[in-house]
């Protein structure tokens, strides 16, 4: 009786934000490039700076980092037909990947980033990636707090004005408890 499901459905879900609004999260597809381009255009300078570090880089270079490809996994959050959040991992080694996360200003501090990060961690774990790495600007206090609050056992290394954080992608009971309290 059980039929088949499309692969993308495995990562699709509704996300209830802290203020009760609902966003739809799913894996990004090649045909989403226009929507991702519009999302990039709507990001604040601060968000671009925190996400890419080099806000002066050419538009196409930034855009390429957000588009889905064979070497990354991209999860997007949509509300009212527009992108409001983007999370991705980029394989950097046999079992490691770098992550990138950016949320539209109006939707920050509503629990969306935490949920997207949890979902890409699950996807990465299924993909054989056991460790996530991310480099965060010391000024990006919101992102630092979010990673800390997620409950992942993290290793932190300070490099100049940047912080390098490593954490496992496996979801243990402590991490699950942290998600539930988000």
């Amino acid at each position, binding site marked *: 009786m059980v*039929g088949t499901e499309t692969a993308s459905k495995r990562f699709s879900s*509704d996300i209830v934000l802290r203020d009760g*609004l609902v966003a739809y999260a799913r894996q990004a597809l090649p045909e989403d490039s226009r929507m991702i381009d519009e999302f990039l255009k709507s990001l604040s300078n601060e968000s671009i700076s925190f996400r890419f570090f080099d806000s002066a880089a050419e538009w196409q270079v930034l855009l390429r980092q957000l588009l889905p490809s064979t070497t990354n996994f991209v999860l997007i959050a949509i509300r*009212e*037909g527009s992108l409001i959040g983007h999370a991705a991992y980029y394989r950097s080694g046999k079992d490691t990947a770098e992550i990138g996360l950016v949320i539209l200003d109006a939707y920050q501090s509503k629990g969306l980033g935490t949920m997207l990060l949890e979902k890409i961690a699950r996807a990465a774990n299924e993909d054989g990636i056991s460790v996530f790495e991310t480099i965060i600007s010391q000024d990006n206090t919101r992102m630092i707090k979010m990673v800390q609050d997620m409950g992942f056992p993290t290793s932190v290394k300070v490099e100049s004005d940047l912080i390098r954080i490593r954490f496992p992608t496996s*979801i243990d009971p402590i991490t699950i408890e942290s998600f539930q309290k988000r």
Partner: protein
Amino acid sequence: MSEDVSFSFMTQCKFGISFGRDSLLYSFPEGNPMNKSRVKLFAQALEQTANQKNTSDLDERIRVIEPVACTDADLLVFHTKGYVELVKELSKTGEGYLNYNDTPAFKGVFEASLFLVGNTLNGLRCILEGRFDHFFNPIGGLHHASAEGARGFCVFNDSAIAISKALDEVKLRSVAYVDIDAHHGDGIYYEFEPDPRVIVGDIHEDGSNLYPGTGDETETGKGFGLGTKLNIPLPPGSSDKEFFEAFDRIEEFVLKAKPDLIFFQCGADGLAGDPISDLKYTAAAHAYATKKLHSLAHEICQGRILAMGGGGYNPVNVCVAWSAVIRELSGMNGRD
């Protein structure tokens, strides 16, 4: 609220509606769209009508009946034992996720779900015993739940359980499942994708912008079930006009299949103003679909329609859409 939400009891059909205090138990915490506040206006309208009925000489063939709980065994007709046990366990504390995804547990979720499923199964039983021609479980139609887990705020798939019982226990030849909720009924489609006995007609918002992202027009069933499913995704912003055209195709599809019973998931989240979907129907869409199905059911399957309320997260929309369903099934506006 300016919309007309009164119900008529002028009918030629026997029509049962299952609703009561226990219907409101299936309610995720405040802040979640699937909270009991979404059905409060509808509940008030129904209660008002029931009170009027008790003090007048109105037709007795429509009855509002109290919710009934199903058993664990009923759940196991469709769901796995492991999943049923998980829901039971998390229901004790109300903590945790039922799928580590988007559906949290709440205290008493298992017991609340027993009533939700029980109402739909009671409707099936009543229809098959001839006590009612049509039956409506407003809180039913949780079409995302799969056999192994919750999805999209749907814990147990009451429609899938009822369909399984209708086919495998009652031995109906075939059933139709018509779904006009804004979200694709993936929990029905994929579970019965290869089953030719389940005719599916589903109109929903295009999956590129809305959960669960499935229900493409190319998904028409598989194996022996190929050609027994009709998915019609509509672009965001679609109005009654697009809905009417799509529903005419559903009507023709169901008519050709001549099922023994019609399940009707009449989710109200396609109406303009819903906080989750981007469709722009009015309650006329619900009136149109119900009128067509009502007429069709009397033509091909002795009037047997089991309706379930499905989604809908704007309380006014929920009230006017479900009221339209009740008015049409009650026969107030006549049949086509």
